[in-house]
């Protein structure tokens, strides 16, 4: 059942719910930006930009705390029910995923900073592709949440396979580099980590998309079919 278009009689409650919605939207935008910047820092070997991603994370962490506090306040003061309850509990879980995505972006740039200190091992082709997909998954999962759009959420979940596939491809390629020349191990490992972090970001977006299905239909679809990973 879709969310009602009627406003809540209690105005303060209505405003708090809007605040939660707006905060999550903003947080989603911030972490998307972090991923994009992290990838640009990698491809363009831009260490100052990498450091900026680390600084951006403070804002994401602050919003994570603010959003959680708002959810707890809503639960304690308004005893929400029905679709409101599902929206708020979903919000609680989504902020955790968004915050982790921010952390993963920070993890990526930490590796980028190390990589930028040595000559580039290979041209980056698969990683930007992975990043693009992961970023679109984050964006669409948040859009699906905002619009209660389960079809879009399903698409996000389906896209996770592509990222897993690319991650595996990167792994095999780097394995051959390392087998041929042990001098590449340090750089290849860093790249491998970046690939893994992107794969984790896609997983977090998948979590968000799965929560959207719960929020809209009231049914948990997590752990229903294939096990992730």
């Amino acid at each position, binding site marked *: *059942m879709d969310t*009602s278009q*009627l*406003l*809540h*009689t*209690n105005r303060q*409650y209505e405003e708090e719910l809007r605040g939660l919605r707006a905060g999550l939207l903003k947080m989603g935008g911030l972490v998307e930006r972090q991923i994009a910047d992290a990838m640009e820092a990698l491809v363009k070997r831009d260490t100052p930009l990498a450091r900026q991603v680390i600084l951006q994370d403070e804002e994401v962490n602050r919003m994570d705390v603010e959003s959680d506090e708002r959810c707890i306040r809503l639960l304690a003061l*308004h*005893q*929400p*029910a*029905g*679709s*409101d*309850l*599902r929206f708020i509990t979903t919000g609680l879980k989504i902020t955790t995923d968004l915050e982790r995505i921010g952390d993963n972006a920070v993890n990526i740039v930490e590796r980028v900073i190390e990589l930028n200190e040595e000559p580039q091992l290979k041209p980056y082709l698969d990683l930007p592709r992975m990043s693009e997909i992961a970023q679109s998954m984050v964006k669409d999962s948040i859009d699906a949440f905002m619009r209660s759009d389960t079809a879009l959420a399903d698409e996000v979940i389906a896209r996770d396979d592509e990222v897993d596939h690319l991650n595996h491809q990167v792994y095999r390629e780097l394995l051959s580099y390392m087998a041929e020349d042990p001098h590449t191990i340090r750089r290849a490992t860093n790249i491998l980590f970046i690939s893994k972090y992107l794969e984790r970001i896609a997983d977090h977006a998948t979590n968000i998309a799965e929560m959207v299905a719960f929020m809209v*239909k*009231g049914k948990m679809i997590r752990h229903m079919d294939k096990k992730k990973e």
Partner: protein
Amino acid sequence: MAEKLITRNLSAYFGQVRALNDINLAFPENRITAIIGPSGCGKSTLVRCLNRMHEVVTGARVEGEVILDGENIYDPAIDAVGVRRRIGMVFQKPTPFPTMSVEENVAAGLRLNNIAQSRAERARVVERSLRQAALWEEVKDRLNRPGISLSGGQQQRLCVARALAVEPEVLLMDEPCSALDPISTARIEELLLELKANYTIVIVTHNMQQAARTSDLTAFLNAGDLIEFGETRQIFTNPARRETEDYITGRFG
């Protein structure tokens, strides 16, 4: 779950005004069923139809059937007083008889129903009922004090004890906690959960958290219609009907 009490196309009128429209509900035995809905939706009228109290209002009448253990309580051959003994009621405000002691209040139903009792038997019923209503420990030393000398919460439990004294099978409660503080409310709610092992309970409440906390099943009424009836946890997390959703999330009117 056996269905203890069933309504079949139950409609209630006040003169020309129809207050309930074709209500079909089944109250399972040993379960608490909550009736929720906005003011004037027919909640109280519905419970009053369940023990033939609606008809005591001038100009009020009932159509349809209320089946208690397979028997229509509106059958002309059935005695309304007997029905009310089997289906007890606790009201919104505590209503102890003002001139009676605690003990007399509890035993009042026995007298009204002409249940002959020896003094010892009566004392036993009073103690059992007060224990069931979780009031015994608090009043056992002042059974001869006036019922109205008790606190509001105690008075309401006294009314529960009075309802239980005649050993009903169904207990109807119309907003039993609306005049009580949160602690007294919690005691009544705890009491309900204990009582459901032996009784079929129907509770009307404006307090949705109370319905959510205490009941197994919830019926949502609006403007005399039964909108939705189902498991309480379903109704409060994911109701099937838009009207129910709007009501439980506070998007009403």
